[in-house]
């Protein structure tokens, strides 16, 4: 009886580990980690404190979507929320807060160059780079992205006090349709009939 219980416990533990491993609950993607490291390595005098690092893979999102479908029976979810939830296939984020030290040596150009180099090794390129005052925002996409139904993106945002690196994977088609619908509400000329 004791042996049977111990075997059950070990099996459950291994199963839990396997589930966490395959769903990647506590791991960010390699790309997100590379963006994070580009900042951490180039700000040696800053003291960054990890706030959260989380990753949800396909399986985790499938579980979330199932949960959403069940919840929709009892709670009236807005259609936009349902669209976003159903489109997502994975997400991960790494958030740090600067608790001390200084950013006197913060060189956004160097951070951007390092991030570009790191991402290029993984087959990604920088779609957008914005630097304003002491805030840097960069968006990366894979070189071979061409499928709207399975698109990926990685984002880096860093300023004097926060560092956020995030990645997402989703089916863009319903999101595009949703975006266009909202844009037409805001800008009626988008919905106007075409000139002859």
């Amino acid at each position, binding site marked *: 009886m004791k042996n049977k219980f111990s075997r059950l416990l070990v099996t459950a533990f291994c199963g839990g580990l396997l589930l966490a491993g395959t769903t990647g609950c506590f791991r960010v993607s390699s790309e997100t980690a590379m963006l994070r490291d580009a900042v951490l390595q180039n700000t040696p005098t800053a003291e960054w404190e990890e706030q959260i690092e989380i990753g949800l893979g396909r399986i985790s999102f499938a579980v979330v979507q199932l949960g959403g479908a069940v919840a929709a029976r009892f709670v009236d979810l807005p259609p936009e929320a349902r669209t976003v939830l159903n489109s997502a296939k994975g997400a991960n984020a790494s958030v740090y807060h600067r608790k001390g030290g200084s950013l006197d040596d913060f060189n*956004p*150009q160097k951070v*951007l160059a390092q991030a570009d180099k790191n991402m290029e090794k993984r087959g990604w*390129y*920088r*779609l*957008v*780079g*914005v*630097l*304003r*005052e002491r805030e840097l925002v960069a968006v990366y*996409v894979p*070189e*071979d*992205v*061409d*499928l*709207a139904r399975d*698109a990926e993106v990685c984002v880096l945002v860093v300023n004097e006090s926060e560092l956020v690196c995030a990645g997402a994977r989703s089916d*863009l*088609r319903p999101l*595009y*349709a949703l975006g*266009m619908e909202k844009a037409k509400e805001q800008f009626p*000329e*988008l919905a*106007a009939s*075409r*000139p002859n």
Partner: protein
Amino acid sequence: MKRISNSFKRNLLAAAICTALVTGTTVMAAENGAIDFGKFKPAPGAEFVEVNIKSNLIEMVTNLAKKAEPEVAEVLKGLKQIRVNVLGLTDENRDEVQNQIQKVRAQLDQNGWDRIVTVMKDAEDVGVFVKTRGSTAVEGLVVTVIQGQKEAVIVNIVGDLQPEKLAMIGERFDIEPLKKIGAEIKPVKKSEATELN
């Protein structure tokens, strides 16, 4: 003698390759309408925006837009790359950026691009260039703007640009610059370039 001759040939080949590389690394207009502005470095405290949209992403968006906005998809279909640089100007980088833009313009003039729009008004300095293929096809567009002492913008759009479709999009969404550019993009000689007041 044969050995010297081979060595001489190798040196000549090396020199030719080096020359090609050196001329190739200056700001040059490639045959397909893309230009290399060089690398712009963000100056401390100044704004910096860089957008680089490649053909695979454009194709993906074209496919997405096909049903909802077919005329927009039609314009996007021929595009291969869109590159935008916005640079804030400070005392540190102003001269360098302005010189680089003037250099880009000079190179475009020398390399078969047509300057179709020139604006010099107040503190604004705008130049629009197109690269044509034959008499009707436009394969590249470059817009350079120096906005007083504050900002510089360079845009390069590469691909099969159809002027009538650009003008149509401009009409559809009431975008003045597109209406004008769509009307102006046609093979013109430098002497006939439009000066806008």
